[in-house]
């Protein structure tokens, strides 16, 4: 184990997979200079400008070219800079990458990874802050991954690059500098498996991506009050680890879903509905969701904060679900 940043873990994942498999290459804007956040630093020097390819600001063609290149024997890693910019390439991802295998009757695969950083990050406003993971979880054919820790960013990205179908890989911009223990040597994390980040008996929080951290903080604070919160980090949104979530809520009887994305029609709704369908008679409290209000993310901190789920909001929500309500 060594301390590594979330950003460096992603860089190491790409480097190791490119060393392992010469079919892997990366394409996107500014990669030769390390990428917009430095997550490709030094890779062009190591692998050359063909395998770490700088491209025009042509999102549709970056994504579409990756589809064509994935169909014909290479394994592209697409860098979209921001998930917001990937919206310029939705046809290429949703109509082409996600559907080609099925639509063409299984004649080939589209093994590509699309890195689309999500989330709020220092006054970046409405076009650089979105969490759009639910859109892609809705699309048959796509795998959707949202890592929350450096170790997971290494292990999940490596596994994603080895996957035979298109993966939307959503790192969180506010986690780039986060340091954490990362195993030495080969580290692979399976797709579709959640992590029980903290055990508890009174309530289950299901979360993913950056919200894992305020959820763990809230769980820690609540343990001082004698409330045991189990925190499940989904890590992969599609397919999501239904078994782990149902086992946990089966035990605690209470579910709170916490997401940074707009709550309305967010992926949390899928978790909440699935748990309600499967465990209704075992629930000790109504299922709850916490997420952003349905507003674009603003620039000024007091405005931006209105879209942010805080650890205080989480502790308040948990208390409201666990502590018996007195009748007025």
């Amino acid at each position, binding site marked *: 184990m060594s301390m590594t940043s979330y950003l460096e873990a992603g860089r190491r994942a790409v480097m190791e997979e490119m060393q392992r498999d010469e079919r892997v290459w990366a394409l996107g804007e500014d990669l030769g200079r390390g990428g917009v956040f430095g997550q490709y630093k030094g890779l062009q020097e190591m692998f050359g400008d063909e395998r770490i390819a700088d491209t025009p600001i042509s999102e549709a063609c970056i994504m579409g070219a990756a589809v064509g290149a994935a169909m*014909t024997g290479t394994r592209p890693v697409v860098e979209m800079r921001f998930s917001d910019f990937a919206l310029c390439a939705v046809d290429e991802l949703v109509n082409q990458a996600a559907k080609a295998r099925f639509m063409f009757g299984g004649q080939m695969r589209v093994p590509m990874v699309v890195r689309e950083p999500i989330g709020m990050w220092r006054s970046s406003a409405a076009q650089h802050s979105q969490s759009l993971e639910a859109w892609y979880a809705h699309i048959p054919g796509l795998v959707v991954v949202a890592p929350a820790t450096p170790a997971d960013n290494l292990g999940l990205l490596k596994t994603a690059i080895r996957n035979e179908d298109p993966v939307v890989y959503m790192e969180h911009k506010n986690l780039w500098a986060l340091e954490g223990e990362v195993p030495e040597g080969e580290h692979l994390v399976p797709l579709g498996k959640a992590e029980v980040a903290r055990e508890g008996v009174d309530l289950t929080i299901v979360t993913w991506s950056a919200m894992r951290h305020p959820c763990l903080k809230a769980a820690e604070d609540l343990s001082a009050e004698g409330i045991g919160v189990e925190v499940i980090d989904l890590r992969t949104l599609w397919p999501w680890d239904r078994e782990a979530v149902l086992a946990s809520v089966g035990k605690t009887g209470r579910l709170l879903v916490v997401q940074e994305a707009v709550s309305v029609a967010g992926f949390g709704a899928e978790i909440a509905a699935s748990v309600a369908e499967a465990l209704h008679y075992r629930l000790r409290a109504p299922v709850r969701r916490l997420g952003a209000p349905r507003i674009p993310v603003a620039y000024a901190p007091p405005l931006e904060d209105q879209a942010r789920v805080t650890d205080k909001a989480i502790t308040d929500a948990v208390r409201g679900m666990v502590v018996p309500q007195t009748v007025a």
Partner: protein
Amino acid sequence: MTQHTAEHAGASGNLETGRFLPILSLMWRIRAFEELAIEAQREGLVLGAIHPSIGQEAVAAGICPNLSKTDLLLSTHRGHGHTLAKGADPLAMMRELFGREGGTCGGKGGSMHIADFGVGMLGANGVVGANIPIATGAAHALKLRRAGEVVVCIFGDGAINRGPFLEGLNWARVFDLPVLFVCEDNGFSATTRTRSMTGGAGATARAESLGLPAAEVDGNDVLAVDAAARTAIAALRAGEGPRLMHCHTYRITGHTAVDPASYRPEAEVDQWRRRCPIARLEAGLRLAGVSDEELSRTRQEAWDEMRAISAEASATSWPDARGAFADVQDMGNPAERAF
């Protein structure tokens, strides 16, 4: 840089009959396949929309015989001709149109999503212009893999007004990729005249502005298309980078087989019927000494083949319904909790 070809090259004689008789056969096979598909749609055998390329056969038949099986082709929603010309099995194609077992895509795609990776046909596409970035990426992969093959990407005139046209052509030039872009210009963006929707001089001017050599070609003259394609493909194989051909042709049918195309005068359609690319090639072959008997045999064989195929396709069973859950993705079983 723009080359203009003679209007009636097909009737100029001196053509290699050994090369163009098979091309005539291919054009008749495309024509018969599509006429029979339209007939089958009227009978309820073809379920979804089909977009015939009747009158445009010279583009497919002029380009694809210049490709090897391992060269790659990307096509459009109006792609039956391209797909047949690239060597796909017409029975599997007709079964696909009928939604039957043994279709090129197992009945999952239909007319607009025919692909046959076994012959380098990477797919028709239901989204105008969407094949351009994919073709560009396929060419990019060929370059990365140091493979010697080339890519041909055929799209309609409507596609030049989509962003991916600009992005793909620019990309192909920047990375010097072995891809030939072919604008098969039938005059109409669905039901609107493309000229009325297009600023500037059009496809070749746009390609040239991005540094791609471009040629204007009479798309109803298969000799002209063949000559231009041969030149362009040789340049691709020599590593000279991407090119564009603008083939001028005309759509004899409506946008789909059921579109009466009442938005254009009948006289205009008649004028183009008289420029039928098949009749023009026949005239050329006749001048070159091919007998009427051989020409009519070529036509008859194509029709007989396609009639038999249509009958066989209609006698094929539906695909197993469980196929709806196959080949979605490896992760997560889509059949779980389906209903």
